[in-house]
């Protein structure tokens, strides 16, 4: 091997080695610095927590509280004076850190306060310029900045941000849409469902779970919007509406849901609708469900049997017994499980099977009795 080539290669590798070593060393230094900085930030957090708590807890004379809003705000401004003047000092770099810490403190408080103290907090967000800052950030090119801004606006309960949030429902980045969704609900309650279900590009299961927490909090107010959503074109929105109506237990939803359960819709939508009929427990769904136990699709038959068992339709036992005889093993299990929940008659049939002459049915019956899992698990 030529010496020159060797030297070149040697130099190259040495250079890379030095770079790597520098990288490693700088990492350790960075870690130590970060640890130190966390301590400083911790102290700052402490100071601001004290200051913020003071603002939030200071007694306000009742005449001012029940007086004109402008006077109340003037009072709030007075309380905010110390923090404001503190923010005016110092260099720009430190100012950013201070504002960030203050924002963090105020955001933390947003989760835990209610009542008049919470109103004060909202005022602070506006007065200190945080709300406008976030609205500006919603137009940033980086998706995580937009998403964090959307989240903050929800936490602040800043109604001024509602327009940008509604627009953000159609943002090209999923995380931004998700945060906008949550914030809109926080700001507008169930009313926000209309925009959300219509405008976001599909409701994933994750979204559905987050939204369901909100619906659970405002059951009655959500119902009209959910009913409306049953006629939307986006299947995931319809599916969400069905599930929520069943969850809330709004029995009158049986009528529109029945139409969906009848068919002519995507398969999983039909299955969701059938299950919902069971959960709603209303007898208006019985006739359709009995018909569906004769459907050519085995999944539909099984869902229908589960639903009938939940409702407890007495006459269903005959239909279900059909499937015990005619179905494959998985269907037999579902059928016997349903029988076990169809009143005394159904239970008697199961006991008969347990002591009957068909070994397979004996073990199915034993399984159901020993392992009586709730329907629809």
């Amino acid at each position, binding site marked *: 091997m030529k010496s020159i080539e060797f030297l070149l290669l040697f130099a190259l590798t040495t250079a890379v080695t030095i770079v790597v070593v520098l990288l490693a060393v700088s990492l350790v230094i960075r870690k130590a610095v970060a640890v130190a900085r966390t301590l400083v930030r911790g102290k700052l957090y402490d100071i601001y927590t004290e200051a913020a708590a003071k603002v939030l807890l200071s007694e306000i004379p009742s005449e001012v509280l029940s007086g004109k809003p402008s006077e109340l705000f003037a009072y709030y401004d007075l309380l905010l004076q110390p923090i404001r003047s503190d923010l005016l000092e110092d260099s720009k770099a430190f100012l950013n850190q201070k504002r960030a810490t203050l924002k963090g403190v105020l955001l933390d408080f947003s989760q835990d306060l209610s009542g008049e103290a919470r109103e004060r907090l909202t005022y602070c967000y506006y007065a200190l310029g945080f709300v406008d800052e976030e609205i500006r950030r919603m137009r940033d090119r980086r998706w995580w900045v937009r998403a964090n801004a959307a*989240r903050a606006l929800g936490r602040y309960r800043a109604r001024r941000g509602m327009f940008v949030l509604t627009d953000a429902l159609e943002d090209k980045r999923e*995380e931004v849409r998700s945060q906008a969704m949550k914030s809109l609900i926080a700001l507008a309650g169930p009313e926000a469902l209309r925009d959300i279900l219509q405008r976001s590009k599909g409701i994933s299961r994750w979204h559905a779970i987050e939204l369901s927490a909100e619906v659970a909090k405002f059951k009655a107010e959500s119902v009209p919007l959910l009913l409306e959503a049953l006629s939307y074109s986006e299947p995931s929105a319809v599916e969400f509406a069905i*599930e929520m109506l069943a969850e809330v237990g709004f029995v009158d939803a049986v009528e529109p849901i029945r139409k969906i359960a009848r068919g002519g819709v995507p398969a999983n939508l039909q299955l969701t609708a059938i299950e919902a009929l069971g959960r709603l427990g209303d007898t208006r769904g019985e006739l359709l469900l009995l018909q569906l136990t004769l459907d050519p699709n085995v999944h539909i038959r099984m869902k229908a049997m589960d639903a009938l068992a939940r409702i407890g339709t007495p006459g269903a036992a005959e239909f279900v017994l059909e499937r015990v005889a005619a179905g494959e093993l998985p269907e037999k299990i579902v059928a016997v499980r349903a029988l076990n929940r169809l009143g005394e008659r159904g239970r008697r049939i199961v006991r008969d099977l347990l002591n009957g002459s068909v070994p397979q049915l004996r073990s199915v019956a034993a399984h159901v009795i020993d392992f009586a*899992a709730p329907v629809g698990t």
Partner: protein
Amino acid sequence: MTGMLDFILDVYFYWVIIYFIGVNITYSILLVFSYREIATYMRRQALGDFRALLQSELTPSVSLLAPAFNEEATIVESIKSLLKLNYGKYEVVVINDGSTDKTLETMIGEFDLREVRQLYIPTLSARPVRCIYRSSSPEYGNLLIVDKENGGKADALNVGINVSSYEFFCAIDADSLLEEDALQRVVKPFLEDERVIATGGIVRIANGCEIVNGRVVSVGLSRKLLPVFQVVEYFRAFLSGRMGWQSSNALLIISGAFGMFRRRAVVEAGGYNPATVGEDMELVARLHRLHLERKIPYRIVFVPDPVCWTQAPETLNVLSAQRNRWHRGLMDVMKMHGVMLMNRRYGPVGRWAMPYFFFVELLGPVFEFFGYASILVLAIRGSLDLQMVILFFIVSLLYGVMFSVGAVLLEELSFSRYPNPKHLALLLAMGVLENFGYRQMTVWWRVRSFYDYARRKKDWGTMTRTEFAKAKSRID
């Protein structure tokens, strides 16, 4: 004739050096991809909120499958900690793989188990099931114990899948220590994207950490050398390796210690294959293959959040047996799914992931080993070109160090689970030191595994079982 030998060895050296440089470049690219993925993940993490997941009725149920073999000393504690996870609805299915000790009896006693006449449908074929047990106490209502004839981990998992009824299942080792919110984190990708069929979690080394009630309470480094080397290795493998592959949907390994799957997808693929010791990797490879062949859209995702901790081997015997087994598993996968290698039909998996695992992971140790061997031969023959040797060592050293440092860097920039700067410095130092002996040992073990594979060594090594048990009951 002798001139011929020298010539061959010379060429071989050139080849190895080029190989190492090529590997370096590959690692660097992987590192960059991993970095981007982790940055994205951390940002999404900061936005995430699991409160709704814990409370909603829509949250899917999960079956946690834990195959157990001769774990009488630790099984009760493991099960108890598995029952205390922070998740809505899930069942814990312990599959007793024909233990020859008192594992089953211990469980029956501790958890008030009684036999149930639960119907067992062998959707996936496996060794026969002897009995199914549930607890009589309501507090263990979600515990299910299946007793079966011995058949190995893959077989036990298949039984677990047969018994489980939920949409998702999570395959773990009986001695995996899960974090409280592990299930939440690992189920999230499935809920965000319907195409996701499998997610893998990161496995971290528990040696040296403080463990209370089956939970890692504070993170530390073992005082023994071997586990610390493995910490760096795991960083390399998980953070800078798997994370990078995920970005092109080419993740080929999901650790057997913790992985979650969509039950339907695995059943359709045929379940785990008991004929291989690398059942975790083989299943994932097969999932890729089938979905690509049938043109079904799918994603396999990696969750880099620390979710699972495991006790790493602390003795050379156990460690070498483990590495031997892993390598033989890799050979199985290559043999069974070699059709994907460099085959454009299989997308990034065929074009990049399979070749990487074949040339770098599988054959890498062989190249390196023959590198050392050639040096020895040349030295004996006195025709050693010192420059070449120095170059060889530098390049191979660099290849190890760069990747290790990069991996530790990734860890530090993202999860930063080791709060003490001293630990960080130690890990970095180990990243360098491991190239002076530790790595060479693993190279030798892996080269030897080729011989064992040829001899058709199919088991996990019964001798190592007792040592696994011993290693497990010892906490640092």
